[in-house]
């Protein structure tokens, strides 16, 4: 037994003395590690989740009015692919991701995550690069119809207005707008070399789409 408790006693003593002598340094190191640590290992899966499933939710049509159950409407998390935006006349057909960082804008159209999903009667703000998914916007005209297809139905919007504004112009859109409005924007002018300070804004109002019912 002495071969166990004597070495253990020595080791405890050594650790005890070390801690007493260097407690400040040890505490600092422990605090430093805890500062950059969490409860679990970080998650590096950067594959964006797709929650878009065509015709996943039953849309009921009665007297020309489409309805979906509110409980069936899936809410997108940041980075989720949840819809497709289309305008046949200008050959616009792109996936819509919730969020608008660099990685998302390389894969499709990004949505300002402070704006709403279609069908909620609020502002929807979409953006994309002008040499990629929103290059087609250079041919858009007033009266064109843009569709957003989601898992809970397709929403149609009619283009009402286009504007060229500075990227910092806060009047470009209103988050508190009292009706459902789709705003799409991209860098302007098109086909330019180098970063441009202006943006091309397209405004469209909802003309049809499923209404939520409880």
């Amino acid at each position, binding site marked *: 037994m002495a071969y166990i408790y004597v*070495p253990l006693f*020595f080791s405890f003593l*050594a650790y005890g003395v070390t801690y007493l002598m260097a407690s400040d340094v040890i505490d600092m190191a422990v605090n430093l590690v805890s500062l950059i640590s969490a409860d679990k290992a970080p998650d*590096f899966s950067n594959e964006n989740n797709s929650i878009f499933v065509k015709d996943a939710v039953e849309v009921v049509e009665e007297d020309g009015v489409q309805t979906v159950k509110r409980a069936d409407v899936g809410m997108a998390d940041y980075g989720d692919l949840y819809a497709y935006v289309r305008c046949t006349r200008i050959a616009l057909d792109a996936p819509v991701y919730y969020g608008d960082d660099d990685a998302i804008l390389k894969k499709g159209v990004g949505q300002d995550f402070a704006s709403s999903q279609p069908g909620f009667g609020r502002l929807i703000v979409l953006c994309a690069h002008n040499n990629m998914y929103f290059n087609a916007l250079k041919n858009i005209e007033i009266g064109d119809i843009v569709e957003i297809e989601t898992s809970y139905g397709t929403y149609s919007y009619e283009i009402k207005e286009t504007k060229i504004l500075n990227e910092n112009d806060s009047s470009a859109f209103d988050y508190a707008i009292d009706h459902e409005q789709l705003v799409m924007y991209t860098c302007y002018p098109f086909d*330019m070399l180098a970063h441009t300070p202006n943006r091309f804004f397209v405004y469209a109002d909802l003309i049809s789409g499923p209404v939520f019912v409880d």
Partner: protein
Amino acid sequence: MKKSSVRTVICILASMLLSIFVSVLAIMLSVELGFATNNSLAIALDEVKYYERLYEDFMDKCESVVIPDGLGAEVFDGVFTVEQLKSDGNAYLNAQLNSTVYKINLDSYKTKLTINIKEYVEKNQLVADGNEDEIIEAITDNIMDYYIKMISIPYASTIGSIFRTISAYFPYVFFAMLIFAIITIWIINKQNPHKKNRVFRYLAYAIMSGAITTLVPPIYCIYTNFYTKIQVYPGYLYDFIVRYIENGIRIMLIIGIILFIVAIAMIALSTYIKYKYIHVKHHHHHHSSDDSEA
């Protein structure tokens, strides 16, 4: 106080001191071999394919940088290669660790990128808002700055400075601990001139204690896995740090296990000598009894 008790106290104290010297030796050796070498960093980088993954991330980020400038990913065709990035990265890391200057030759990258951008501009009929050459130079300079930023390992200069300090003190501390250890072994031996089993017993105490002291940190790390919970991004940098720590822990574990085996050998030797001594004494006593009876 009896002479034998004084001897025991001296041996216990010498054994305790020896355990400290053995522990310091083992831990310093673990740190020097497992952590504080440029090679340990290089091995971890290689094992997690750091530069290959960095290249992919770099190309991805480069695309994100030039797309808002109206350009496409193809402007990078033939500009950067993973082999060249690896070579630049290793050379730059060595320079940072050794506190020397390594100037990456960016001229060939910049020339090729400039040619590609001009071709892209012409092919896609892009219009420059100002002097085209100046705009292209600003874009290429931006990418080159980004290249240097991406290939440098965070805090490499500080890590190199710590490595150099450890390496500078290591031989002196190692030699001093070795001398102190020899002195304490000599003291233990001197106190037990005729009972070698006791010498090995005190050595076993010290070495077993050294093994425990050396094994506790790596076992604690493996058991709690606390180092895997550090929030470091991107993924390849995280994998590199975790692998580097794991490789260092493994070295510490191996040294601790070697000490443990040596301690077990000492215990076995002590026990063997003790029983051999008892057997000889008993045999001798038996013979003496026979002689007296005769």
